[in-house]
Each structure stands twice: as C-alpha cells, then as structure tokens.
C-alpha cells in the first residue's frame, strides 16, 4: 500500500492528508496507473502535490520509498521462470496440483512465451529510459528522419526512477533564496484598499435604495473608487557586514519599487544601527532625523527593516544626539530602535543571515525589539503575514526554528 509513502511525503513537509489518500486510492482503483511504477509516479504526483515547490520533495520521497521495487520485480520474474522449468522437468505424477493446473491452463509453451514476452517488455522499457536521458546531450539532425511511431515510443517517456533521480524541480523549492518575482509576489499581499477620491463609481446598492425611497424615480448615487492604502517605510542596513548580501537586498529593493499596490513607499538607509538619523541615499547623503521621519510617517505605516543585525555589541549602546553625532548625554542606539518599534503599529525585520546564526548577541537583542524573519521567500511571506495581521502586537515575533 501507498500509505507508507504518504508518511514519507509528510516527513518531507509535503502536506498530504486523508483527502489525497482517498483521491489516490480512487485513481488506482480506476486503473489510471496502468499497473506500472511509472504510471503510479505520474498519477501520485498529479494528486499528491499541489505546488511546484513540493515537486522536488516528492521526487526525493519517491526515490527513498520505491528504490529497489524494480529490482524486486525482476527477481520475481526470474523465480517464476525457474519454477516453470522445474515443473516441466518433473514427471506428471511428481507435479504439485498448482504446477499441474498452471501447465494445463495455458500449456508450457504458452506460459514460457508469456513470461519471456513480459521480460522483453520490461527490458525494452529499461532501454527506453536510458535513451531518454542519455541522448539529450548529443542529438544530431539525423533523429528527425525517424518515422513518427518510433519517435513516440522511445522519446517522451522517462522512467519514474530516472525522472525522480534527475531532480528536475530542485529550482522550484521555496526554501531557496528568492528572486525578484517571488519577492514581488510576496509583497503583493501587503496591499490594502480604501475608498477615497472623486465620486465616480456607481454605488448600486445606494442607487437602488435611493430610487426605492424616491418612489421609483431613478436616482443615481456615486461613490469614490477603491485605492490602495498601504504605506511602507523600508529601512536598509548597508555597508560593512551587509556587503555580501547586497545582491539579495537589491532584489528586494527593486521588487518593492516595482510594486504598484503601495500608496507610498519610502526607503532610507542606515549603517548597523540607527543613531538619531537615517539617510536618503545609499552613500549616507541627505540625512533625515528620526524625529522628522516619525513626524512624516504615521503609526499606520508598515516599517520594514533589512539588515543582518551583526555588529559589535557596544554599537547598540553608542549614545548619540538627534543629529547623529556622539554626545555623552545622547540616546543609545538600541533606544532609537525601540522608538521606531514603538511608533509604528506594525514592523518587521528581515535578516539575510540564516536563522541558524541568530544566536549572536546583537541579533538576539534586536529580535526582542522587532519581530525578525529570514530574508527568503518563506520568511518574507511570514513577515508580510505579520505586517497585515490586525491588532497591535509588539516585541518578539514568531519564533523561528533553528
């Protein structure tokens, strides 16, 4: 039964449940898999996997679970042939009832033919599989001249084991670091709408209501259209330990810039920690003080910080004044950060460092101020989910498993 396989899939985080199991059972009952392992692979994949991100895990699980099944099948065939030979060699009286029955039902020749035909079939299938992967690289123009039928028979079909082993879908896993498009997809969830502006959309309900009140005399009611209402403030850590991540952060930045569903997007830069002010340009030009920033951006703005939060611990404790210069009676860096966290209703920190390294003291400290998420497709999705959730929650974000 395939139930063991389902648990193998679950172990690899492919979400399958009773619904999938029942669907697969029905498909097998209907004979959709043609009683072959290849057929089972295709059918199971269509029914158990719902997202291309899970295709790779499915292939791996399939390999792990069904490796050896094919060899077992061959061994079984071998045994059958031996058995047939032995049965034939025996005299009539010595044969067991089953042997006698088998020989009588089909005749020894027919039986042998059946077996060998099956054998060859299997062998042919194996060869096709080998061709399927081996020839791709060195195909010459000659192949095109083959007759249509032959082409079909040896092309197209790859053995299930071969396909699974090739792991063609590795690129679609979603725990990989992200590209611009998947980032944009993740960011899209941040959108929200509000009605405002000119009254130029027909309010159907309102019109009906007003017309009815007007004793059937038509009265048209208009309302303002829906417009995006999300405002995002993006603060990015640049330079120093962030340099290796520059590529990744740039992609996030371009995805955010391209997103058309934000009412407003402001981007500012800082280095390691915010000291009284942030900068409009990557080269730390055009400073904006935190006070100005907070005055401009209301609490309903979504604050997104991007940084590795790695620095010398003292840097969190450096005191600075409102203009970013060191003063002994200034405010510590971490306090500036806390001011930001307190001002905004929703904030999230995206960290390009893998969560396994989040034990470092400065990361731990900043995690207690901002909910922190890894800068991957998954992490960004979680962060966006956190940013859009209703109600106000501060402090530590959802814990990330190490």
């Amino acid at each position, binding site marked *: 039964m395939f139930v063991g396989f389902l648990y193998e899939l679950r172990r690899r985080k492919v979400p399958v449940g009773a619904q999938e199991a029942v*669907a697969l059972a029905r498909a097998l009952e209907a004979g959709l898999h043609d009683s072959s392992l*290849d057929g089972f692979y*295709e059918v199971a994949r269509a029914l158990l996997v719902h997202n291309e991100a899970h295709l790779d895990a499915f292939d791996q699980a399939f390999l792990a679970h069904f490796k050896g099944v094919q060899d077992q099948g061959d061994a079984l065939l071998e045994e059958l042939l031996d058995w047939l030979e032995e049965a034939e060699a025996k005299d009539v009286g010595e044969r067991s009832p089953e042997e006698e029955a088998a020989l009588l039902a089909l005749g020894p020749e027919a039986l042998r033919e059946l077996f060998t035909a099956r054998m060859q079939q299997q062998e042919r299938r194996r060869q096709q599989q080998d061709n399927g992967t081996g020839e791709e690289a060195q*195909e010459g*123009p000659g192949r095109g001249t083959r007759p249509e039928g032959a082409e079909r028979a040896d092309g197209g079909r790859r053995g299930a084991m071969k396909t699974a082993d090739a792991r*063609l879908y590795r690129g679609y896993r979603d725990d990989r670091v992200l590209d611009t498009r998947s980032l944009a997809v993740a960011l*899209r969830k941040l959108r929200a709408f509000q009605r405002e502006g000119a009254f130029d959309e027909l309010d159907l309900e309102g019109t009906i209501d007003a017309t009815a009140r007007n004793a059937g*005399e*038509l009265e048209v009611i208009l309302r303002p259209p829906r417009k995006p209402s999300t405002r995002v403030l993006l603060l990015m850590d640049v330079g120093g330990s962030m340099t290796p991540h520059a590529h990744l952060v740039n992609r996030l930045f371009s995805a955010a810039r391209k997103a058309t569903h934000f009412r407003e997007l402001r981007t500012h830069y800082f280095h390691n920690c915010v000291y009284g002010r942030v900068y409009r340009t990557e080269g730390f030009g055009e400073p904006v003080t935190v006070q100005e920033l907070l005055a401009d951006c209301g609490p309903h703005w979504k604050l997104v910080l991007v940084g590795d939060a790695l620095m010398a611990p003292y840097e969190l404790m450096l005191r600075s004044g409102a203009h970013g210069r060191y003063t002994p009676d200034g405010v510590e860096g971490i306090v500036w950060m806390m001011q930001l966290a307190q001002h905004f209703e929703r904030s999230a920190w995206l960290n390009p460092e893998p969560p396994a390294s989040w034990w470092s003291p400065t990361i731990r400290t900043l995690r207690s101020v901002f909910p922190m998420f890894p800068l991957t497709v998954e992490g960004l999705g979680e962060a966006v989910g956190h940013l859009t959730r209703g109600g106000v929650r501060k402090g530590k974000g959802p814990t990330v498993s190490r």
Partner: protein
Amino acid sequence: MTDRFRRFTGTDRYLTSPALQAAVNCALALERPLLVKGEPGTGKTLLAEAIAGALGTKLLTWNVKSTTRAQDGLYVYDTVQRLYDSRFGDGDVRDIRRYIRFGPLGEAFRSPERVVLLIDEVDKADLEFPNDLLHELDRMRFRILETDEEVQAQARPVVVVTSNNEKELPDAFLRRCVFHFIDFPDRELMQRIVRVHHPKLDEALAQQALDVFYQLRDMTRLRKRPSTSELVDWLAVLKSAGVQDLKLDETLPFVGALLKREQDLLVFHESLAAGRRPRA
C-alpha cells in the same frame, strides 16, 4: 472499475507528456478541477482547447481579470437594466429572471451536455477569489438568491484552471485540484512541437533555430527567457522572410520575436559583443 471514460492522449495539434496525460486523466476520472501551472508560453491555455477537442465537447472560457469576482462567473443580476426598464422601458420588470445574466460557470452548469470550462489565469484575481469558488466547484451547484432557484450541473463540467503563479492559491483550493506543472519541453518534444506547427519547415533550419533557441534560454542573465510560443512565432517570421541560415551572433534575425524586454536585448548584445559565449 474499468475505463468508464475516454482517456486523454493529446491531439494531433497538441502534444503531451505522459505526466500531463496522467494528470488530465486523473481529473477526468475523479471529476476534479485540473490546475495547470508553468512558465508563460508553455501551452496552459491551449491544453483546455485540446481536452475539449479530444472529448468533442464545447469549450467555455472564463478570462479572469484583477477585478473579477467569483459571483461574476455564476450570474449577474442586472439591476441597472431593471431599474432602467421600470422607469422608461417596456416589458415585464416583475420577472427577475429576465435580468439574470449567467457567467461562464453558470453557463457550464446549465449546459445539457458536458462542457470543458477553462478558468484562465485564476491568479490575476483577488487573493480570496479561489476560495469563493470552492463550494460551487465541489458541489457543482449554486443558488440564485434573487429568484431562489437552484442551478445544478446537469453534467459535471471538466474544469481546467490555469495559473501564472502571480499569487499563491489558497490551500483549501489546491487540495481539491489535480495539479500539473508543465515542464519546459526538452529538445525532443520541442522538435515534435515545431513540426506540428510548421510541418513544411526546412529540417536544417529547424535544427539551427532550436540550437540558437536553447542557447538563448541558457543565458542566465535574461529576465524573461523565450518560451515555446515565442519559438513558434519566431519560426513563422523566419519562414516568411525566407531566412536560410542561422547562428547565434549579433545579427540574429528578428531577435525581437524571442526577447521581449529591452533589458534582455541589451544583455543579448552585450554578451555577444564581448565575444563571450553564453554560459552553457
């Protein structure tokens, strides 16, 4: 339980892989929607046409847009028309049924024989859109609130849903679908596809075009890699322009048919001008 339905094996204009056939047949046998994903231009939409062709049924298409609501697919109660008629018009405004306009899903349910319903680019709509369709696709029935009538599918339509992955689809929706991810065709399948679309194309030119095409696809810096439909279009252009000989260099004819983005064209010229071979 044996074959109660005709198996789908593709058509002479639409070639399929065993995996795709298995997925389509699962959807047919289990009467579940088939969700098709894949790179743009790999024939997701054409699949529905092919299924309709193979089954010999009508195809209804529901093109989803960003403003589409689930209700639009079922029916729309044309209140404005009714209001208008009540004031200025003629005819009987008491009969609400005259003002119910059925959407593609409603039409598919009402059709006396089985149809193929294509819900194209479901990801264009709002995030909640697929969830709003769950019940209707499951039970294949819905109620018209205005007239309190129930529309029930007389023959369960074959539903094909395509997605370009712009939005994640909700889990509850995914669970009800048979899923297939259309791979980018390998060279052999591509050759057959090309032959189906351009049967009279010179074999040598086709080979050269495929060479160039796969080399282009392997250029890692491209933002939008050319896909099947672009290749087929490009070959059509080459054929009508009478091009005889092709190789990947800066003078590649009609490269605009393959690369649609300005940046990609820049990348293309840059990497070839520098004398570097594209990364294989």
